[in-house]
């Protein structure tokens, strides 16, 4: 069962940060992760898709925060005592961009050898297939390894926001209370 597409697994880091999201375990390559902070003080931005929770002040820089559960097509995460924001550094179009993602709880850093990573299922994960880098086997259970470049693609998020902004006029109209 090692008929794995060679490139992503071998070039990806062996260490992963695992976290919980809606009771499920996910993992992100540790090299992309800048830091993990407690959830708080998120400023909402009007007229954007619901999966953009807003922006935070990260030591003087304004960083957008994405609700991962909502990005996967589900409901927004409920904020609890263990909710965290994982700051992920991305490089897209030669531009560095920090993006925060909201997760229910951070678990641990795991080492997953390439041999323990299976290709993503063609369907059934209830997540867009291109969001999944692979399925890691940890203690006999599967962990979804996320392809952060796709999940947090600035271009894609921007064009999704644009659709909302263009439709914002409707949103605005809908917001006006009946006279």
């Amino acid at each position, binding site marked *: 069962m090692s008929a794995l597409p060679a490139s992503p697994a071998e070039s990806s880091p062996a260490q992963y940060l695992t976290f919980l999201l809606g009771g499920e375990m996910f993992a992100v390559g540790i090299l992309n992760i800048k830091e993990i902070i407690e959830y708080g003080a998120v400023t909402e931005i*009007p007229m954007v898709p619901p999966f953009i929770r807003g*922006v935070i002040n990260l030591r003087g820089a304004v960083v*957008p925060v994405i609700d991962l559960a909502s990005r996967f097509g589900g409901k927004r995460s409920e904020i609890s005592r263990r909710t965290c924001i994982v700051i992920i550094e991305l490089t897209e179009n030669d531009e560095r961009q920090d993006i925060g993602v909201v997760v229910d709880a951070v678990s641990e850093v795991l080492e997953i050898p390439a041999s323990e990573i299976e290709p993503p299922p063609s369907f059934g994960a209830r997540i867009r297939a291109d969001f999944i880098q692979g399925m890691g086997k940890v203690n006999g259970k599967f962990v979804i390894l996320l392809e952060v470049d796709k999940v947090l693609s600035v271009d894609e998020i921007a064009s999704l926001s644009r659709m909302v902004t263009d439709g*914002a006029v409707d949103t605005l109209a809908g917001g006006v209370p009946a006279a």
Partner: protein
Amino acid sequence: MDELKQVFLQESNEQLDALETLLLELENRPDDETTLNGIFRAAHTIKGAAGMVECAAVESFAHVVENVLDRLRNHEIAVTTELAALMLGCTDHLRVLVANEAGVAQVTIEWIEAQGARLLAELGQYGPGGQVFATPKAAEAGVERIPSNRSGHNCWHISVRFGPDVLRQGMDPENFLRFLETLGHIQHMETLTDIMPPVAEMDPELCYLGFEISLESSVDKQAIEDIFAFVRDECRLAILPPNSKVADYLELIESLPEDTLRLGEILVRVGALTADELAEGLRTQAIPAAAEQPDVLQIGEILVAQQVVQPELVAAAVAKQTQVSEKKAQDAKLIRVPADKLDHLINLVGELVIAGAATSLLAHTRRDGELIESSSLLSRLVEEIRDASLQLRTVQIGETFNRFHRLVRDACKDLGKDVQLVINGGETELDKSIVEKIGDPLMHLVRNSLDHGIELPAVREAAGKNPRGTLTLNACHDAGNIVIEVIDDGAGLNRDRILAKAIERGLVDAEAHLSDREIFDLIFAPGLSTAEQVTNLSGRGVGMDVVRRNLQALRGTINVDSHSGQGTRLTLRLPLTLAIIDGFLVVSGNRSYVIPLDAVVECIERPESEHNRNYFNLRGQVLPAVCLRESFSLPGERPARESVVVVQYAGQRAGIVVDRLAGELQAVIKPLGAIFRHLQGIGGSTILGSGEVALILDISALIKISGQAEQRLIARPELRNA
């Protein structure tokens, strides 16, 4: 690109700007010595700098230009309109050459070469006889030689150092020399064997020879160069035309590897220079270098001691040198700083402003009198630092304005119009990043005024106006903004034609009743640029809609005011800086928003009204309003008392309904990043003293989308219940 070259590129562009300005001045005052000298100096500086970075194309072209300028300066030829135009053409060509050197030229090499050849041919008419550019020898007869700065030598001077590998490549230096004989008569030749090692170490396969040759011939420089074409890459070749100035010889001496004094002697021996000329030249050159090179100074001293040069001559040279160093000292008061260092500083100051605000907030919550006092002192200093560091980035707008002299002049020639350009407030300062970005929009506006605004002289006279049109560029500061006006006294905008075009293009309804202002605003609508108006001058390039968009990207605005037959006034308003603004903090639904303070007119309490419509009675006038709570779908209950911030934007007034007002603040603008690039109504963000991120409202966009929303709501009432 290495640093030296970058400095060269930047400096030569500055010098070219200066050259252009001076040439335009010369056209108006052809007898002004100072201007003429300034022109010569600029051309010479470019040439010298080009030589330093081995930019041969620029150097040789500048040299020819300089020769003609030199004749002008010596009153051998007179300043004419044609000559000034030619010189301006040469300036442009130099600019292209420099751009080419930087790798940013937008034309092909062939084009550059063709252009260069054409200009050289034209320059040839003005050059002294027998110069690089072939002119009939007869012309030389009338030329009076000035012995003090021109050597009385009629021969080409060729200085060649063969590379070590020449022999290995099967070429014999002797052949080249023999070939030279076919062009003319070699008057004198010196062989240089300085780099020849002792016999024991010598490699017989290498060439160690160099020659200083004096050639009497009527061929041009190219012909001589062609002889050495095969070894061009292998050897150092310098060719000075007959009658070159002493300074050129000295430059040559300096550039060659051998000892200066020895070379000088050789040049005297080959007859290129007289001993006096050499001594004077060396003396002048030696003084600035004296500190580092005492041995060079000695040459001068020796020469004086030997009475080769007269003491008065030395004194004159010293006096001249002092002038030069005084000028140098003035230049030294300016420091060139890389722009990114300044940007970093301004970012840091931004952080400081935020941190300072946090401290004073803390002091106030603690109610500690002493802490409040010290933090307010700190705040004041921080404010001063902010202003001072922002000022580091400011430049005077005059430089940008001055570029238009040339544009106006050329456009007048092309269009057969007579226009004078008047500049006011050139000393007004604004942020360099803004200056860079308004150049093009301004250029477009000026072109438009010249092309469509100001009429032909005959038409003007018929209308009872001064046949000479006036184009005025004004700049001044106004309430935290910079205001730039482009005013012409031309025909004014044709209200009916604009309206007809707009109706034709479906931009406005045929029945709509529009005010003059609304009609004039239509010229900024995309697609209105009327086809019949396209000319060489303003049909190309950007349209008025692009001008407006560029200005909006800088948080600026543009307004038109026009009176038929009297002219048009375009008013541009721009913020002073892009980094930090004075803002007005408001709170709605527990969230903070910043409204740019310069947009705020006044704040009032939301008047009581029975209806639920968004307009108010402001001292008898109707004030449309945007309710932030509604627009941004903010949660929570409406408070019992709300406030209205009255804002003014592009001449329009509107109210913004907010929960409460929280006072003024300095907002360091933090861009929201690529994810939010399509966001409308929000201009950016800033960080408050509490650490909270507040959004900065983009007033004009907010008002616009609110208006659109209402239109849709009226069109589709079912949304009302959505």
